[in-house]
C-alpha cells in the first residue's frame, strides 16, 4: 500500500488521494493561444523510470493538491509539497 506524506495531514494511505498525472510540466498561461503548446501540455507525457513528480489530491483529507515525488521503478516516495507552494515559488 503506497503511503503518501501530506504536508497538512501527515502520512496517509494512497486510497485517501486521487491521482492526476504528471506534475513536471508547466501549464501554458491562461489565454495562451498557442495551439501547439496546449496540445503538448494535454497530450504529450514522458514515462520516466526513476524519480518523477506527479499531482495527487488529498480528497478525503484537506483537499489540497500535492506534488509528490515518487520513484516509478521502486514506488519509493521521495517527498511531497503543496502544489500551491510550488507554483508560488
Amino acid at each position: 500500500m503506497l503511503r503518501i506524506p501530506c504536508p497538512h495531514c501527515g502520512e496517509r494511505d494512497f486510497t485517501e488521494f486521487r491521482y492526476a498525472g504528471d506534475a513536471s510540466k508547466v501549464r501554458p498561461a491562461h489565454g495562451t493561444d498557442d495551439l501547439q503548446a496546449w496540445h503538448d501540455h494535454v497530450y504529450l507525457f514522458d514515462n520516466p523510470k526513476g524519480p518523477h513528480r506527479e499531482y495527487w489530491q488529498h480528497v478525503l483529507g484537506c483537499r489540497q493538491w500535492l506534488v509528490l515525488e515518487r520513484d516509478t521503478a521502486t514506488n519509493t516516495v521521495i517527498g511531497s509539497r503543496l502544489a500551491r507552494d510550488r507554483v508560488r515559488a
Partner: protein
Amino acid sequence: MSGPGPYRLPAGGRIDRTRPLAFTLEGRQLGGYAGDTLASALLGNGLTLAGRSFKYHRPRGFIAAGVEEPNGLFTLGSGGRATPNVPGTVVELFDGLVAARQNGSPSVDFDVMAVNSLLAPVLGAGFYYKTFMGPRRGSWMFYEPFIRRAAGLGRALHIADPDRYETRHAYADVLVVGAGPAGLAAACAAGRGGARVVLVDQDSEAGGSQLGEAADGPEEAWRRERLAELAAMPGVELLLRTTAFGLYDGNTVGLIERRDAHQPDPARGEAREVLITLRAKAIVFATGAIERPLVFGDNDRPGVVLAGAAQTYLERYAVALGRQAVVATNNDRAWYSALSLAEKGVGVTVVEQRATVDSQLLARAESARVAVLLGSRPLYAIGARQVEAVVVEAAGKELRLGCDVLGSSAGWAPVVHLSSHTGIRPVYRADIDAFVPGGHAATHCSAGAANGSLSGWDAVTEGHEAGLRAARIAGHEPGTRTAVLPDSPARTYAFETARIPELPRRGKAFVDFQGDVTLKDVHGAHQEGYVSVEHLKRYTTLGMGTDQGKTSNVNAVGVMASLRHLSVPEAGTTTFRPPYTPITVGALAGRSVGHHFRPIRRSPLHDWHVANGATMIEAGPWLRAWWYAWAGSTIEKAYVEEMRHVRSAVGIADVSTLGKIDVQGPDAAEFLNRVYVNGFAKLPVGKARYGVMLNDDATVLDDGTTARFDDTRYFMTTTTAQAAEVMSHLEFLLQTAWPELDVAVTSLTDQWAGMSVAGPRSRQALELALPGHDFTDAALPHMGCRQIEVDGIPLRVLRLSFSGELAYELYAPADYGIALWTRLLGSAAPLGIRPYGLESLASLRIEKGHAAGLELDHRTTLDDLGLGKMASREKAFVGRELRLRPALQDPERWSLVGLECLESGKRLRGGSILFAAVEPQKGHGRGYITSVTWSVELQKYIALGLYDGGLKNVGQEVVCAFPLKGEQVRARVVSPVFLDAKGERLHV
C-alpha cells in the same frame, strides 16, 4: 516385494490418538485423529487415490505434505459453505469434515474420461488451442465449455456464502513470515529487544521443517522453549493458520487468517477468515523451501512422492506411505529422509545420482540396513493405481526395484515468492543450484531455507541475526544475547546438480502435475520456438494451476535452459505475483457485501420519499426517488402521469443530489469567467446563468447554473454525476494553475437540500407556501435568484427550469429540507401539487432537448451538443484553444439530434445503433440513442441521440437497431427541442 501402500503406525507422530475424529469422503465414513490433515487421514486409511489429473485423468496420489501439493485437491463442505480446489495437505481434520475429490466422472475411482490417457499422443500442449481455435472464428467459444468441463477442477458456486469474513488493519515493528527454526529464532531475537513482533505461519503449528523431524529429538525441545519464550513476551503476536499471501508497497503485507476452517461452528459466531492488512517497519522472510521432484517415466503414479513428504507423513502423522521404499536423489538431505523411514521399519533403497557420497552417511545407511545404489537414476515407474516397482539405471545396467513408495528429491527450492512480489527478481546461486531472494529492500532480510540454508543450525543462526537486524531497523536495540541453538546432530547437505531429465523410453515424465505438462510438452514448446520461460508457461500451462507451479517451475526452467544451451540464470524465472496460495473472494470482500458493498448517499428528504410511496433507485452512490405510487402502479404508467402533472399543474422534485459549490472571493467573477465557456464577468447580483465547463481537451466536463448572491459570493450547481469531479477540477485550477486568484471554493452539496417546483402553477405554489415574499416576474424574473428568510431560516430561491415549464429551485439548509418540502406540499395542496421522481425529471428534459449525463460523456464537445454558440469570443476559457482543432470542428462529427418514433406500437431504446434507412445494417452505424422517453405532448416515443452530421439530417429517416432484442424501429431525425422552441412556457 511390494507392499500394500500406506498405513498408520501404532505409535509415534504428533497426532493425538486420544482424540479420534470422524469425517466423510464422498459419503464414505472414515476416521482420523486430531493433528491429522485430510491427506494424512486418507493415507492413514490406506487410500492412495487423491484425484484424477487435469487433462489425462490419470490416477494421482498426494506427492507433498504442504501447500505445494498439486494433485490432491478437494471440495470441502456443502451448500453455500462449499470450497473447491483445496489441497488435502493443508486441511486440518475435524469431526464432521465433508470432503469430495474432484475431476472424476462419474467418480474418481472409476473415471470414464481416463480414455484421454489413450488419446495422449494427440493431447499434447497446445492441442486444444490448435484444434479448436480452428480457421473459423468462434469455434473456441463453442467448444470451450465442453473442454472446461472435461478438464475440471472444482466448481465455483452460485449460492451465497453464509459465513462472515472480517477485515483488520495491523502494525508491527518486525513481521516474521514463517515459524520454522529461522522464524522462531528471528522472532525471539527481535522480541527480546522490545520490538513489537508479529510472527505468522500458514500451518496449524509453529515449527516448520522441525515438525517433519522426530517428535522426541533435541530440535523439539528447542522449539518448545522458543514458543514458551515468545508466549511470555507481551509485544509478540503469533498468528497460526495465517498465510502471508502478498507483499505490497510500503512494507504492506496481505495476510489471511483462517479462524474457523479447522473447527467450523456457525453458532460460535467466529469469522471464517480474516484479511489482515499489516504494515511492518521491517520484514524477515523465513519462508522455507520446497523440494523438487525428479522427472522420469510415469513419475506421477500414486506412491511416487517427494522424499521429504514421505518423512513428514511418517514423523508428524505416523503414516508410513509403504513398506518398501526407494528414495531417488542427488542430495544428502534426502538421505536423512531415507534414514528416518528405515528407523521406522520401512525397507529402503537409496538410488543416488552421485558416484560418491560422504563416508559417514554411507556408514549410517549401512547400519540402518539401507541399500544404496550410487551413480544411478530412476528411468520409469511401474504400476497403475499404486507404484509397484521402479526401473533404475545403475552402473550401466537396468534394475527393477520393487517398492510401494518412491520418494524423489532433486534438491530444494527456496520460497522466494513473497520477497519477489515487489519486483525484486530472485538470483541464482550455483553453489546450491537454486534461486534465492535477489537482494533486499533496506527493510527486508531473509533467513534459513528461504535463504538457501537447509541446515537447522544455520537457520537458527541466520534467523537470530535477521531478527536483530530487523529490530534495529525498527528502532529497537535488541541487546547482545547470542542465539540459543538446538543440540542437533551434525548433518551434511552436500549435493550434485540434478541431471537434466531426458525423455523417458517408457511412460510419461511429468514436469507439472496439476497442469498435466510433460517433459515432452516442454520439448515441444521449445521446438515450436517458445524461447522465454514466460512463453513456455503460457503455451503449455505449466505453473498456471492453483499450485502456481511450486513443484514444477524450477525443473521447467532447468529443462528449458538446457534445450537452449543457456545457464539457468540466463533462462530466468517467471514472475512471482500474489497470492502465494489461493485465497477466497470472501476474505477479500470482507463485510463489503450486499447492502454494504459500497457506501450509499441519501438525500435529506430520503425518509419522506420512502414513507410516501416512492420507489427508490440507485443513481451513482445516491438513492433517489424514481417514481411515486400516486401516479401509477408501474414505472411506465407513473412517470408519464408525473410528466403530465408537471406540464399541466405543478410538481415538486428532490434535486438535493445536485453538486453545490460556494465560490467566494474578490476574484470569483474572474475565476468563473475562466472556467465557463460563456461570459460570467458581468453577471449581476441577483441573477443566475447557465454555464458549460470544458476539460482541457475541449470535451464537455459539466453544465449547471451559477447564481450571484453578492459581489464576491456565488452559488454554483453541478450535475449529480460530476459533482466531485467539478469540485476537484476547480481546486486543481486554483491551487496549481492560478494561485494568484483570491478565491475559495467549498462543497455545500450535503449542507443544502434542494427541490424543484415546476409547472404552470409553480409561482402560485410558492406564494401559498411562502407568503409575504414577492415572486412576481418583476421581483424574480426568469434566471433571477434571491436569498430570503422564512421563520428565521435562510432559503435560496432560483427561478430556472430544467423541464421547460415555469419553475423554481428552492434550497434550504439540509436539516430544514423536509420542513420546506412538506410546507410546499401542504400549502399548495389546493393547486394539486404532487411529487415527481427521477424518471419524469429526466424525461421532461428530453422533451426540451437538454443534454444531461448520458450526452455529457466526456467525448462530446460543445459543438456536438449544439451549444457552440455559447462559447465566448471575448475571453479565454479552459479548453478554448484545443476546441478549435479541425477534427473537433468537422461538421460530420456525431452530434446531438432528436428522434421521433415512426412506428406506433413500437418503442425506442437507449443504446440502439442508428443506421440511415436506405443502407445495409452493418458495422457500428452512424450513431446511437442516448436517452428515450414517451412524450406526453407528442404521444409517441422520442429520443435524443448522437448522429453523423447531426442536424444536417433533419427529416431523414433512420433505423434504430437493437440487436440484443432483435429489434429494428424506424424513426425520423428532428430538432432535439420537441416542445416550446420559443420558451414561452417559462414566462406564464
